[in-house]
């Protein structure tokens, strides 16, 4: 068993009366790729946002490299090397590629004015993107001129450049074409080969990412219901679990509607 990077114990989170996450315990080893699967509203984003320091958990504990920690802010998590790549990518359309890559960790000339060193940022951004296999026309173009895949690549490269130890990818292939998905998966594959970074991929379409994961966790209604190594499970098994969930949900809806007098077939 390789060295553990991140572990959570019994994490729960409620928003008012809604419990978004219940008793979630996950673990992530160094260099491991964990697929965190689940339907919309299953609690994936909530779990992710707790790990990034965006939400504070209602209860439960987080351990990072064996140390228990309390994440007070996004900057807290980032300073430890926990780097989120959000679905909206948190890129700024009005800024160019290299300024986006260095947003909030700008290279500056010394002094109180905080003048930006564009030359240094441009050169390092170029090198990083090339290394990771992200193809863009130039680091000087504004983000708004790039495709979805290129943006995703830049967002991932930005996190890796920040010396990420844990990379949290939120739906990295959402709304992406086949070619663009291939590029992103290639970037993930390269990272996995290097083995420095542990990755959690959050997705609801598990077929696409299944082969890239070492382990799969399934979140259903705020709870982790399934934890298997990829080699011990299959897309078919996951499908049957999800189908069961749908059937159960359909049953609940049917009962609640029939109690109003009519039986509706969904």
């Amino acid at each position, binding site marked *: 068993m390789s060295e553990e990077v991140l572990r959570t114990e019994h994490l729960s989170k409620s928003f008012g009366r809604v419990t978004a996450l219940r008793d979630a315990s996950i673990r992530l080893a160094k260099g491991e790729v964990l697929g965190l699967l689940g339907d919309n509203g299953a609690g994936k984003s909530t779990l992710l946002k707790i790990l990034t320091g965006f939400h504070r958990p209602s209860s439960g504990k987080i351990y990072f490299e064996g140390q228990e920690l309390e994440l007070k802010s996004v900057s807290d998590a980032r300073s430890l090397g926990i780097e989120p790549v959000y679905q909206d990518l948190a*890129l*700024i*359309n009005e*800024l160019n590629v290299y300024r986006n890559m260095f947003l909030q960790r700008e290279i500056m000339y010394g002094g109180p004015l905080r003048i930006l060193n564009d030359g240094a940022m441009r050169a390092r951004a170029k090198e990083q993107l090339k290394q990771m296999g992200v193809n863009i026309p130039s680091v000087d*173009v504004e983000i708004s001129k790039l495709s979805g895949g290129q943006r995703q690549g830049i967002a991932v490269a930005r996190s890796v450049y920040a010396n990420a130890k844990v990379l949290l990818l939120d739906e990295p292939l959402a709304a992406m074409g086949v070619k663009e998905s291939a590029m992103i998966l290639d970037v993930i594959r390269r990272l996995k080969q290097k083995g420095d970074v542990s990755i959690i991929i959050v997705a609801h379409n598990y077929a696409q990412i299944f082969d890239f994961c070492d382990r799969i966790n399934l979140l259903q209604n705020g709870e982790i219901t399934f934890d298997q190594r990829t080699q011990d499970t299959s897309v078919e098994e996951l499908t049957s679990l999800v189908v069961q969930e749908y059937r159960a949900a359909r049953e609940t809806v049917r009962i609640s509607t029939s109690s109003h007098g009519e039986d509706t077939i969904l």
Partner: protein
Amino acid sequence: MRRVGLSLLHSREASIAIAGIALVIYFQSTASAFLSGSNIANLAEYAATTAIIAAGEVMVLISGEVDLSVGQVYALCPFVMFYVHEAGLPFVPAIIAGLIPAVIIGLINGLVTVVLEIPSFITTLGTLFLINGLTLTISGGFPVAPKAGPLVSNTFGGNAISQILWAIGVTLIFQFTLVKTRWGMHTIATGGNLIGAAEVGVKTGLIKIGNFIICSVLGGLAGTLDCFRIGSIDPLAGGTEIMFMAIASAVIGGTLLTGGSGTIFGAFLGAAVLGILKDGFTLSGVSAYTFDMILGGAILITMLINVHLSRLRAAGGGQ
């Protein structure tokens, strides 16, 4: 030729500068006094303080907010300066003391907008009336005259050259801040993608509050410069007119009201073009009523051109 055309297309400032030059040529051909020294001084005095306020307004607009109260800060600060001076302080510290209320008002505008999550349009509409009432109350509604010596007066906007130098200085400082410093980059990020910037860790609230303070202080500075030029401090000076002129300058200069995009240099040119228009029409004997109609038309036309140019830019690719 095509390349020149394209590069002009890429620079928002170029089109407004060309419009300004065309207007100067037109007015000079209709009224030969247009380019006379005294008229240029007249024009500069009008455009300079608008440009200073516009610089602050651009910072606020880029961060995704708007400040309607800046014209009232313009009226309040010189009064505070006057009373502090009357109380015995020399003019230079009194001027600085006069800007303290501007800092406080900017802070209030920012805190109410960011912390209480009230849209800045409403926040600053509220402070607009509040400050106006405050100025009228402390002044009793009567103008006063600052009794400054020629050195203080000439340094702080008492003549056209001093006014122009202040406007150019403010424009250069904030254009540099916007394009070359971390504060400027974070301002663009905040207005461009508020949630995204916050997710990355940009302190978006702090950026907005800071820009409200910058705008307010520049409003106070503009009012102070104008009080030495005019030689009296009027509780009803500035107001919504100078605020709307500053926003118009910003918009004509290419700043978007939706945030994330704009230039201080463009706002400076916008203020100059508005000044040229107003002054030119006055010289040509066009009435103030017609001027407002033309101003309205000019804003609409420049907005149309801006929107279409940015579409062309997007379609043409940025490389």
